[in-house]
């Protein structure tokens, strides 16, 4: 390439231009002011495809500063490819410090999980959301669903839960399980397993949700009521696992199934990799844990 091509394209701190960041911050503030309400925003094209976390990335890019410490997880893990890719993106365009440790992060961007380690006041959890509208598969029309939210007409949501029980004997929604935020808006918690729903309830951390393709931002401010929808005689319940994590022995955590061979051999391990490593570093181990010692701390300073 010739010399000119080096300045053919340049980018701002954290990729987005400042006008755009201000616009997104306004949407975030509105979302915080009306917990659970989906604020339309002029979502930008991002350098990763729609559906790959563009909403979360835009939220993170708009709130991140040079002193932040960022953690990115996908499926609970820091080392899944998309998490690696988004973390690398912010290292490159914002030059911020990154970490895999939940407790050390000031911003945690996540897809499909909430970390096992309880979050603290001052931390921000940024969710990537594919379909922000909890009523979407009951009513495909945006004009209609917005009206239903405005008028608080949520009977249809319970119709779906009713149908689950009638057909399957139980509520068969296992992830993206709808919640009611602060007694008003029915909200999609993003496709986290319902196991994580209780963690949203009165969390000290600020929870922000970004849906890039669908152009919506919503928020659950700290210490806000988040209640999973259910029936009195079929109360909400989280998944349980028959066995603890095979590596760290943790119970009451969400587990991934790992296939060991093609004869049906499998084991269950923590989906939250940081949590699992921390526990093993602290001396816990499960029945299939390797003997080798693991390096626990993984924080890379800002450049």
């Amino acid at each position, binding site marked *: 390439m010739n010399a000119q091509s080096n300045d053919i394209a340049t980018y701002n701190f954290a990729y987005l231009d400042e006008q755009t960041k201000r616009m997104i911050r306004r949407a975030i503030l509105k979302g915080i002011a009306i917990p659970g309400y989906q604020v339309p925003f002029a979502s930008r094209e991002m350098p990763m495809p729609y559906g790959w976390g563009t909403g979360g990335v835009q939220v993170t890019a708009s709130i991140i500063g040079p002193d932040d410490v960022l953690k990115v997880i996908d499926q609970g893990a820091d080392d899944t490819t998309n998490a690696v890719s988004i973390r690398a993106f912010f290292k490159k365009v914002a030059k911020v410090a990154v970490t895999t440790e939940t407790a050390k992060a000031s911003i945690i961007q996540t897809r499909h999980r909430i970390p096992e380690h309880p979050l603290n006041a001052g931390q921000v959890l940024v969710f990537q959301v594919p379909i922000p509208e909890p009523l979407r598969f009951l009513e495909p029309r945006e004009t209609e669903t917005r*009206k239903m939210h*405005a*008028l*608080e*007409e*949520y*009977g*249809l949501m*319970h*119709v779906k839960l*009713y*149908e689950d*029980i*009638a*057909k399957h004997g139980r509520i068969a929604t296992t992830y993206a399980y709808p919640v009611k935020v602060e007694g008003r808006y029915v909200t999609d918690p993003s496709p986290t397993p319902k196991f994580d729903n209780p963690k949203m309830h009165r969390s000290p951390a600020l929870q922000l949700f970004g849906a890039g393709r669908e152009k919506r931002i919503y928020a659950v401010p700290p210490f806000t009521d988040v209640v999973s929808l*259910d*029936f*009195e*005689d*079929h109360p909400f319940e989280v998944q349980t696992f028959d066995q603890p994590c095979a590596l760290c022995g943790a119970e009451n955590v969400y587990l991934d199934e790992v296939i060991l061979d093609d004869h049906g051999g499998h084991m269950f391990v923590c989906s939250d990799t940081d949590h699992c490593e921390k526990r093993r570093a602290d001396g816990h181990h499960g029945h299939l844990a390797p003997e080798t010692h693991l390096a626990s701390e993984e924080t890379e300073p800002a450049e």
Partner: protein
Amino acid sequence: MTDEPLLRVSALSKFYGSRVGCENVTFDLWPGEVLAVVGESGSGKTTLLNCVSTRLLPSSGTASYRMRDGQWRELYRMSEAERRFLMRTDWGFVHQNPADGLRMTVSAGANVGERLMAVGDRHYGRIRATAVDWLSRVEIDEDRIDDEPRAFSGGMRQRLQIARNLVTGPRLVFMDEPTGGLDVSVQARLLDLLRGLVTDLGLAAIVVTHDLAVARLLSQRMMVMKDGRVVESGLTDRVLDDPRAPYTQLLVSSILQV
């Protein structure tokens, strides 16, 4: 309580551009009274029904409704939220085509239970028991409760639609050709059922129909419409046995001869 009407409609008109939908219609409806609105297609009876039920906004005129607390409210000044709430609690609307009034892809039980859930019932067992009760009242077997209305016959669908509307104990039901499109034998059974329910529950109803037999069987009072205007109204038996307006005479004679 019954010395006051339930609904007062005054000088109601609806125009579509220069075309008249209905013009200057005035009537009162009393609690427990069934009013039939008859006329040929294009006479404005469905426009009137849609205006009174607030599915359409009229061009001029007023309609007031006496709420459960005895307060009179002007329908066209209510917020959309209030109107929608009224429509799913104190009112019912039975469409000619059941597919317009049912959720075709959810079970019969959920169709009946939806209104209960919409007003905050959160007990699955109770909702289901109520649905079972209502299905039996409209003569649908309990074991069809988890079937979707797609699997139902036309008559069953219409009965399911009626159950879905009546489950919240409304005081006023709007019906648009409720027996239209059904076989004659099915029609007769449905009319019997409707008549029984209306009497048992003390429902007020406005029934739009082009079928004078339906009006005769269900209503105490009727209005005859032509070209958007009411040409005659009165007690059903009187209008049918002693029609005064020439148009009503024509209507009665032509239909009774068949």
